[in-house]
């Protein structure tokens, strides 16, 4: 595929850069709608209770209060648990779980009521006047406890287990018998929070009695519309959502689908009652308390031989869903993010409720939790056998899927280059073999990866308008959350048409004017929507050329486009040409009744047929230093070696790698949501005590990649948004082991754990 690209593959600065660095674009929290009221949420201060009564009389009477709602004033709509529709097969076991506002609360911070007022001070005063009588119930914060048949608390009528399945492949018992060694451990990690810089926010109003419009900080506003229409009982076309500039949802601003975006219907219902627009913004405390990534609870038992062959694997994968299981997709060994073959496996996948924050998507979703376990296990096996963990991985790493079909795109070169870049061969030493107070270590972790939804599995669409002036407007429903989709999609359009980037303007953000898009998540945009964009551009170009051919009485193959001069010409005879304006006339019909040429050619694009090929592998290498007196882990160097497809924009790709690496580092070393066991309250719901990385928390960081073009991805692209965040935590964990020779299997790896592992406390 040695094609010379003109726009694709260039490090073009993001097109929304200028408005962002000048502060001239409005994020959702910057927008003011005339006459808007300010809303606040009343949250539960108990972890598990029935609401026996709730009296809003005094709150409603407060001057300046315009609307108050409780469970009595919202539709009885219930969101289905698990990821209803995710993987299809779960819908039989999924239950209706979550109401917009309920007469029961299931975690400290669950929603009880909402008010809309002239200003926030009045709103907050009103919250104090709402009288709630709770019938407190026993509660639990521990997944293992929740699972027990005699657990002293029952979160839902059907119990505390949302999902359970046992899967077997081959003969695990036989495999364990054949093993020379068996390792059995739990791999765990705390709840962590996405902590977007801009909190969730919405402004909703009713321009007509049965039409609602809203701004929302959202990754999938088109899908939000569907669910809001459902909840409010409106036809879909009566709902309009707008989100252009917003601060990264990294999964947490995904949709109602997964039932955790109740603030949008709440704002809409308040707006209907008050007869005015209503603005609702989460406080930072709410932002941290309302959701999280599910904690990691993976029990693995592995049997393996002296030569490193893994003979059997037994795994229990527990998803502690928190108070609601909406958005959990159980995952285990049947998910191919792992790069190795396990021939004989037995596994249990369990989704269980506890009275804590429930999960939202978070960059890397389940693979992040899974790979912490697997890549630590693989490292333990290598070290048990006295093998270099990198050599071991390359030895057992999958070259073909379980049907023996080779993965054509597994490129080891990138991994070797990453290893060279960190100086693996020179620096890797036997674990714990250093001396002195500060001990250095190297670690590696590998993962298989691909993007969601290529192959017409997600209905993203695009429109391309070729204007009579020869300028081009691309229209998509994309959400640019900071990954740069606004730019990348415009590049794809420009390349497909053969025009410079400057001639394309990209309109996105308002569902009234943009075609449907399932949103930005699952590393899918470049592959799925990008494919639709390419198709739309091709369609527009085809119409242009066919019409020009008719106008010039020739065949399409004879023609070329001079965008500069805005004309289409015969290659063999340049002087025979027709202006693009004239061609538009041919396509659309001339404007007989109005002087001048008007109108556009409109190209329509649906997603590509081909699914981007699965199964490439990438790796993170970490070099760290442990201070054995303080327990602190210092990141010296992180190399994220990624097998990318065609890099549509190398500048933005590099940013994705950096972002994922450091987010992963945060999860590895410092992030955890800490709960009070006696009340279930989140204790560190602020950015001082919920620690995320700063400029002082890392050394050098390099993202490197090889382009391993995927024949099915647009221009050979592969999705890259999430995978850089999957392998850093186990790479760091493995580096810590290498440094001090003691294994820590519980994230985050904080100084107290290091000191305990070293026997110092």
């Amino acid at each position, binding site marked *: 595929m040695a094609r010379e690209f003109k726009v694709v593959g260039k490090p073009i*600065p*993001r097109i*929304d*850069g*200028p408005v*962002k*660095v*000048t*502060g*001239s*674009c*409005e*994020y959702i*929290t*910057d927008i*003011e709608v005339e006459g808007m009221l300010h809303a606040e949420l009343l949250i539960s201060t108990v972890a598990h209770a029935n609401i026996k009564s709730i009296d809003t009389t005094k709150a409603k009477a407060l001057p300046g209060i315009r609307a108050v709602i409780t469970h009595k004033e919202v539709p009885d709509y219930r969101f289905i648990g698990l990821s209803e529709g995710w993987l299809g097969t779960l819908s039989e076991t999924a239950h209706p779980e979550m109401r917009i506002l309920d007469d029961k609360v299931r975690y400290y911070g669950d929603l009880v009521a909402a008010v809309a007022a002239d200003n926030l001070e009045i709103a907050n005063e009103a919250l104090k006047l709402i009288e709630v009588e709770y019938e407190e119930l026993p509660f639990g914060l521990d997944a293992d406890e929740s699972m027990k048949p005699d657990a002293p608390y029952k979160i839902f009528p059907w119990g505390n287990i949302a999902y359970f399945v046992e899967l077997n492949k081959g003969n695990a018992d036989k495999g364990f018998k054949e093993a020379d060694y068996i390792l059995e451990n739990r791999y765990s990690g705390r709840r962590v929070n*996405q*902590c*977007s*810089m*801009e*909190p969730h926010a919405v402004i909703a109003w009713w321009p007509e009695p049965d039409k609602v419009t809203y701004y929302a900080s959202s990754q999938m506003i088109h899908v939000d519309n569907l669910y809001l229409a459902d909840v409010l009982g409106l036809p879909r076309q009566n709902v309009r959502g707008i989100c252009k*500039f*917003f*601060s*990264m949802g*990294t999964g947490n601003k995904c949709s109602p689908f997964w039932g955790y975006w109740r603030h949008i219907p709440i704002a809409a219902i308040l707006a209907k009652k008050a007869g005015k627009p209503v603005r609702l913004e989460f*406080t*930072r405390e709410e932002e941290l308390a309302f959701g999280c990534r599910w904690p990691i609870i993976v029990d693995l038992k592995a049997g393996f031989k002296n030569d490193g062959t893994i003979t059997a694997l037994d795994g229990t994968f527990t998803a502690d869903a928190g108070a609601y299981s909406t958005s959990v997709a159980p995952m285990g060994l049947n998910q191919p993010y792992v790069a190795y073959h396990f021939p004989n496996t037995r596994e249990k996948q369990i989704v269980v409720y506890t009275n804590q924050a429930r999960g939202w998507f978070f960059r890397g979703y389940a693979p992040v939790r899974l790979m912490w376990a697997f890549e630590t296990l693989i490292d333990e096996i290598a070290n048990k056998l006295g093998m270099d963990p990198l050599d071991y991985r390359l030895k057992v790493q999958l070259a073909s899927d379980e049907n023996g079909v080779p993965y054509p795109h597994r490129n080891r070169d990138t991994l070797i280059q990453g290893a060279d870049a960190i100086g693996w061969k020179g620096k890797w030493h036997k674990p714990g073999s250093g001396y002195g107070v500060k001990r250095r270590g190297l670690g590696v972790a590998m993962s298989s990866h691909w993007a969601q939804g290529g192959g017409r599995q997600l209905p993203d669409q695009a429109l391309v308008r070729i204007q009579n002036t020869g300028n081009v407007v691309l229209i998509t429903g994309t959400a640019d*959350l*900071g*990954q*740069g989709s606004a730019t990348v999609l415009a590049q794809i359009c420009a390349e497909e048409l053969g025009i410079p980037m400057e001639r394309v303007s990209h309109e996105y953000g308002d569902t009234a004017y943009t075609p449907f898009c399932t949103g930005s998540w699952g590393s899918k945009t470049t592959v799925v929507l990008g494919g639709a964009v390419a198709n739309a551009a091709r369609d527009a170009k085809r119409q242009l050329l066919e019409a020009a051919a008719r106008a010039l009485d020739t065949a399409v193959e004879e023609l070329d486009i001079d965008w500069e001069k805005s004309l289409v010409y015969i290659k063999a005879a340049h002087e025979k040409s027709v202006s693009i304006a004239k061609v538009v006339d041919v396509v659309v019909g001339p404007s007989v009744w109005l002087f001048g040429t008007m109108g556009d050619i409109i190209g329509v694009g649906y997603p590509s047929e081909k699914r981007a090929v699965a199964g490439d592998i990438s790796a993170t290498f970490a070099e760290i230093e442990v201070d054995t007196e303080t327990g602190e882990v210092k990141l010296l160097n992180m190399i994220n070696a990624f097998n990318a497809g065609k890099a549509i924009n190398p*500048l*933005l790709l*590099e*940013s994705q790698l*950096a*972002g*994922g*690496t*450091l*987010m992963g580092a*945060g999860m590895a070393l410092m992030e955890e949501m800490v709960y009070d066991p006696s009340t279930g309250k989140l204790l560190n719901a*602020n*950015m*001082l005590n919920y620690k*995320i*990385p*700063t*400029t*002082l928390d*890392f050394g050098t*960081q390099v993202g490197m990649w090889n382009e391993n073009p995927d024949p099915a991805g647009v221009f050979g692209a592969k999705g890259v948004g999430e995978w850089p965040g999957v392998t850093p935590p186990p790479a760091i964990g493995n580096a810590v082991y290498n440094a001090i020779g003691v294994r820590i299997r519980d994230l985050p790896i904080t100084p107290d754990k290091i000191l305990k592992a070293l026997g110092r406390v």
Partner: protein
Amino acid sequence: MAEGRKKLPEKDALKARLYANHTETNTVLTTLIVNGKTYQLKVEPNKTLADILRWELHLTGTKVACDRGECGACTVLMEGMPILSCMTLAIACDGKRIETIEGLAGPSGEMHLIQRIFVDNDGLQCGFCTPGVLMTVKALLDNNPSPSEAEVRKALSGNICRCSAYPNIIKSTLLAAEAIKAGGQNG
């Protein structure tokens, strides 16, 4: 002459303004000089500078992410030094020179060199922390035109970026320092 407690002139002036005669209750006449423009405002004493900048003056470039002084997103410059506008009462800024992100570009809207370099080197991703970052960078480079990388990291350690665009933020800052020293113009 009484030694002992000195009267703090600022505190007195503030007190005077608090009790001054106004037609509305509960507001204080406050002069803010923002990006070179002088505003005479009647400000409630409990409003932060961020509140006033964003909701009174409609300068929404300054962002509020935590409202507790923990993340740096609300950073603006007061008399050339970075402050957290979400933790600064507006009335305490009476007569002070405030610079926000909207004032960084030139009068004809041309981007400052710092802004251009950040765009060209992708020193941002979602951009929400960016105004706070850029104001911090401006103050840093105004006071220390040749910062080391360690000094850049230290200066920016109070600006949290969840996208974790830090490597390019640091790189852009160092490039901006070089460019400004090399005689680059403002815009």
